[in-house]
């Protein structure tokens, strides 16, 4: 994001119209109007990449990449690779020239295109400085197409109902979202818990990274305490008797597995657990 560029400004115009006239505005009928290009400050570029904890193995995709500063900084200051998507061909050319000057041309790419249709799937970090309507339109695709664990950093305008995993304010506000794995639904959970059974049906509900649920077994229900999801990392606590069982694991599509630690101190027993999906949240409706 180097830029607040908000393309598609039918949606932006709609927001303004709504504010002025308290009417919804016929967004669908408006043509896209280019909005002014607003470059991120040096501090903003730094902070977005710092918040995303960019590493050399990352591919940073900047949506609305303007003069290329975020992508170039990702390569120059963090050793990452970068891809910028920009609707203005002149800015794409300028970005390429800037990348050559910065000596990072071989590690970055700039594509002339629309952020709403561009292929983002290779990104491990996505940065954006876009107006709210565009952010909201991108959201379903970001959630569905990006791999769990991908970090999204938004400058000024975050998602309306998706709670940021982290938020930092240094003059301006930056939001970090970690794309969550999809875990809603029913899972066959196999775990060896001291004093417990081996087979459970784990049922999970999910709203973005917030999850809740529990394990059903013959004769009862164990609520999942402290259930958390961060990217593809899941954790929750089941309790039998006076013993807590802390599950930590990784989600891979229709399977998850990891380690469960029962008890504390010298009585702690660790063993492996595994779950396979029976019914997904989408199928359950």
């Amino acid at each position, binding site marked *: 994001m180097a830029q607040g560029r908000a393309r598609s400004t039918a949606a932006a115009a709609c927001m303004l119209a709504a504010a002025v006239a308290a009417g919804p505005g016929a967004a669908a009928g408006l043509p896209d109007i280019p909005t002014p290009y607003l470059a991120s400050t040096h501090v903003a570029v730094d902070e977005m990449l710092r918040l995303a904890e960019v590493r050399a193995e990352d591919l940073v995709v900047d949506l609305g990449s303007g003069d290329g500063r975020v992508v170039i900084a990702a390569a120059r200051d963090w050793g990452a690779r970068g891809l910028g998507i920009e609707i203005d061909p002149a800015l794409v050319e300028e970005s390429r020239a800037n990348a050559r000057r910065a000596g990072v041309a071989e590690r970055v790419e700039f594509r002339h295109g629309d952020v709403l249709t561009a292929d983002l799937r290779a990104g491990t970090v996505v940065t954006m400085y876009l107006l709210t309507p565009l952010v909201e339109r991108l959201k379903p695709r970001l959630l569905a197409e990006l791999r769990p664990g991908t970090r999204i950093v938004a400058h000024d305008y975050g998602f309306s109902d998706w709670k940021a995993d982290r938020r930092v304010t*240094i003059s301006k506000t930056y939001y970090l979202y970690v794309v969550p794995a999809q875990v809603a639904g029913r899972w066959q959970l196999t775990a060896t818990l001291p004093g417990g059974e081996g087979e459970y049906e784990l049922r999970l509900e999910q709203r973005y990274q917030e999850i809740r649920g529990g394990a059903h077994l013959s004769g009862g229900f164990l609520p999942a*305490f402290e259930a958390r999801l961060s990217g593809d990392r899941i954790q929750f606590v089941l309790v039998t008797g006076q013993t807590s069982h802390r599950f930590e694991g990784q989600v891979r599509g229709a399977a998850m597995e990891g380690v469960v630690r029962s008890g504390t101190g010298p009585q702690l027993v660790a063993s492996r657990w595994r779950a396979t999906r029976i019914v997904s949240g989408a199928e359950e409706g």
Partner: protein
Amino acid sequence: MMGARAVPAVLCALLCAVLAVPLAPSHAQERGFPHDVPFVPTAQLTVDEMLRLAGVTAKDFVIDLGSGDGRIVITAARKFGARGLGVDLDFNLVIQSEESARQAGVADRVQFLQQDLFKTDLSPASVITTYLLPGVMLKLRDRLLALKPGTRVVSHDFDLGDWKPDQTTSVRKNVYLWIVPAQVAGVWRTSIELPAAARKLDLEFTQRYQQVSAHGRLDGAPAMVWEARIAGERLSFVMTDADAGEGESALYFEGRVSGDVIEGEVTRGVGMQRRVAKWRAVRIKR
């Protein structure tokens, strides 16, 4: 843990509030123990969770206020290798705790005293555990806040009012963790070595519990301070600096507060462009 014993004082307070009638001194007050709370043993699950949340290790000294049958202190010694002290008003529970500690093989690492928790010296503790009624917690609050920065306080069910916990878990019960913050309120003077020149920085902190905010003056000009945080004795905050020729950059400050001195590192910029310098601030006004 424990809990506590007896609640005449609490009942009295309730009744007084309801009836607006002064009551005769309760039994507890006659005995000189005005802070009694009923003894309700904490479930072992919650004992484990309290000690886990506090991150207890063999280096810790755990003081349990209202130690009941001694289970928290004994668990801290047996499962986490810590040393500990339990205080309780009930002499029978103190004796029972000592016996349990012998049976658990930790008698050499724990001690139990029949004592009013308000008269207990809390300064040796690196971890304090409580299960006390809200009124008693609030009376303890200022004493807890005055403990060595970094001391961890854990409670279950009852919190410390407007001193918000640093962490909460809810495995069946709510367990709260507070980390005693260093006191940084006041005006601090520092100078930092920035690329262009050494700069004079004055910082004024305001603080309520672990919530701190600050504003600064960099070479006399007002400068915003962002993301100020304190965790025990560790302080961090961010400023921005527009240095001649370098463009504006963030300055990430981290430091350790020790009385009227803060020492630490300031990082300018991020990634491979970042540069680190030492900084030291001295409090010039409380």
